[in-house]
């Protein structure tokens, strides 16, 4: 079979059996956690799963253009899904980690603001480069009119391209995606940090102040690891480029939510086992 004749396998189709298996796996992992670490461990795992799902869902909002966008032939930011998700999430994670001592809600909101701010700056500078550097207007190729502003797109779209630049709806999508991703990454970090702060002192027979560097470093490392796993799984779900919430590919999000939930539960339980056994 040649590359031309092949049809893309990762279409919008759902695989109900696999989704069912995924949900069963999620329940099994939750059950294992309830068995080995009820209470604090289970609460942490639920927080981690929510964080992972936020990352997986949020990434669908981000306008990803890939290599075609770098040549002005597709709308979006000119890099891959995994890189953008990691950038937004890690920016949020660093922002949220600063506020970790002020309580979960403030820290998660701070993380969301950090991620959203990073995406807002990225989207604005990308449009600056497109408009003033490459001399192309922003136009979507997937919809006739911008769903938010109502501006028509077809007049501005160059022939032979899928659109170019960042239309307003993609900009908003990018910021929303950054907020969700940053909040999710921070939530994972906070859940693990709270768990390690309580359990590590007894495990290593040291005071809380002494083990703080280890708790912060291990929680941060696990959060980065889970973030990258979730970001890459979402990238596999999107396969290539997406314009934002108005793109037809956005409808694939249920698959990603199931995959992110199972992956986060799996990684989360490993991270919890380190202080239990």
């Amino acid at each position, binding site marked *: 079979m040649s590359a031309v004749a092949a049809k893309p396998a990762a279409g919008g189709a759902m695989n109900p059996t*696999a989704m069912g298996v995924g949900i069963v796996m999620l329940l099994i992992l939750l059950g294992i956690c309830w068995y080995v670490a009820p209470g604090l461990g289970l609460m942490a795992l639920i927080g981690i799963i929510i964080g992972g799902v936020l990352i997986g869902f949020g990434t669908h909002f981000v306008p990803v253009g*890939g290599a075609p966008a770098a040549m002005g032939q597709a709308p979006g930011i000119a890099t891959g899904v*995994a890189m953008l998700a990691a950038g937004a999430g890690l920016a949020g994670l660093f922002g949220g980690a600063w506020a970790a001592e002020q309580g979960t809600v403030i820290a998660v909101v701070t993380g969301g603001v950090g991620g959203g701010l990073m995406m807002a700056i990225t989207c604005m500078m990308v449009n600056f480069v497109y408009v003033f550097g490459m001399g192309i207007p922003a136009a979507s190729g997937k919809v006739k009119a911008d769903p938010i502003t109502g501006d028509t797109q077809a007049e501005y779209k160059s022939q032979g391209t899928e659109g170019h630049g960042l239309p307003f709806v993609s900009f908003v999508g990018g910021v929303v995606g950054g907020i969700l991703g940053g909040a999710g990454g921070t939530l994972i970090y906070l859940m693990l940090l709270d768990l390690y702060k309580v359990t590590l002192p007894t495990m290593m027979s040291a005071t809380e102040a002494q083990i703080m560097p280890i708790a912060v470093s291990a929680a941060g490392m696990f959060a980065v*690891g889970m973030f*990258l796993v979730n970001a890459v799984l979402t990238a596999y779900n999107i396969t290539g480029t997406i314009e934002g919430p108005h793109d037809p590919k956005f409808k694939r999000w249920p*698959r990603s939510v199931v995959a992110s939930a199972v992956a986060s539960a799996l990684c989360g339980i490993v991270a919890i086992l380190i202080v239990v056994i």
Partner: protein
Amino acid sequence: MTVKVEVVEGGVPHTKIMAAGIIVSLVCLYLSYLNTMTGTEMFSFFGGLAVVAALIWGSHTIKVLCSYGIGTGVPSAGMIAFGSGVIAMLLATKFGLAAPIVAFVLAIVVGLILGYLSNEVLNMKIPAMVQSLTELAVVGAFTLMGFAVLISGSFTFTGLTTGSITILGASLPSYQVSFIGGSLIAVAFMLGGIAIQHPFNACLGPGWTQDRMLMLTAECGFLSMIVAAVMSFALITTGSALISLIVAIIGWIYTYKQYFALSKRDAADWLDAKPIPDLEGH
């Protein structure tokens, strides 16, 4: 896409590279246990050799996976390798002497489930997906464990979290001066992540040759090992760190020269251009 764009033509088959990667990494990781048996830290450099072996295997796995158009770029494969590898590796360090074996088994479990998720739930339907993600998780775990051994001389949780500082001649235990507590693991993560994703990204295309890509991987691995060996001065004795640094520099120079020769061999033409000459009279 279900179409495989490139095929492995000639060269060493993938299963052979995989078997060699597993065996060499495991043997090197266990050789570093000589540290504990002899009471020195001289054998830490075996961790760096385990890193290079695992990276060579991993870059070939990335080649197998990314030959199918996965549409997300080659770096994403390196990122998921280390994302899942660091999780398996950190838990495995709790098992003392069995840590490398436990990391191997645990990474296989994590990789299998992630492979199932991407192939079935996310509907990727790529034949090599499950096996590749499993292999990549093991590669990530081995690479990080190798860096841990190289930098701190040990692969146990206690060894990675406890260091000592000397104040006025007295040695005090400190959790901050350690591989995990000092967040050296984050640097090791990115050093490995770049080294694993770069070779195929740099060598892909119609002119791809297996030996050139693998030589570039070894070169990237030794380059990362130089940086890690410099960091190891903070945690292990100066003499031991110096041994690691010398091994890394010798390995890097050799592989760099070899890679240069292979690039010349594969190039269409080679012009030994001189630098821009200084104009006379200035």
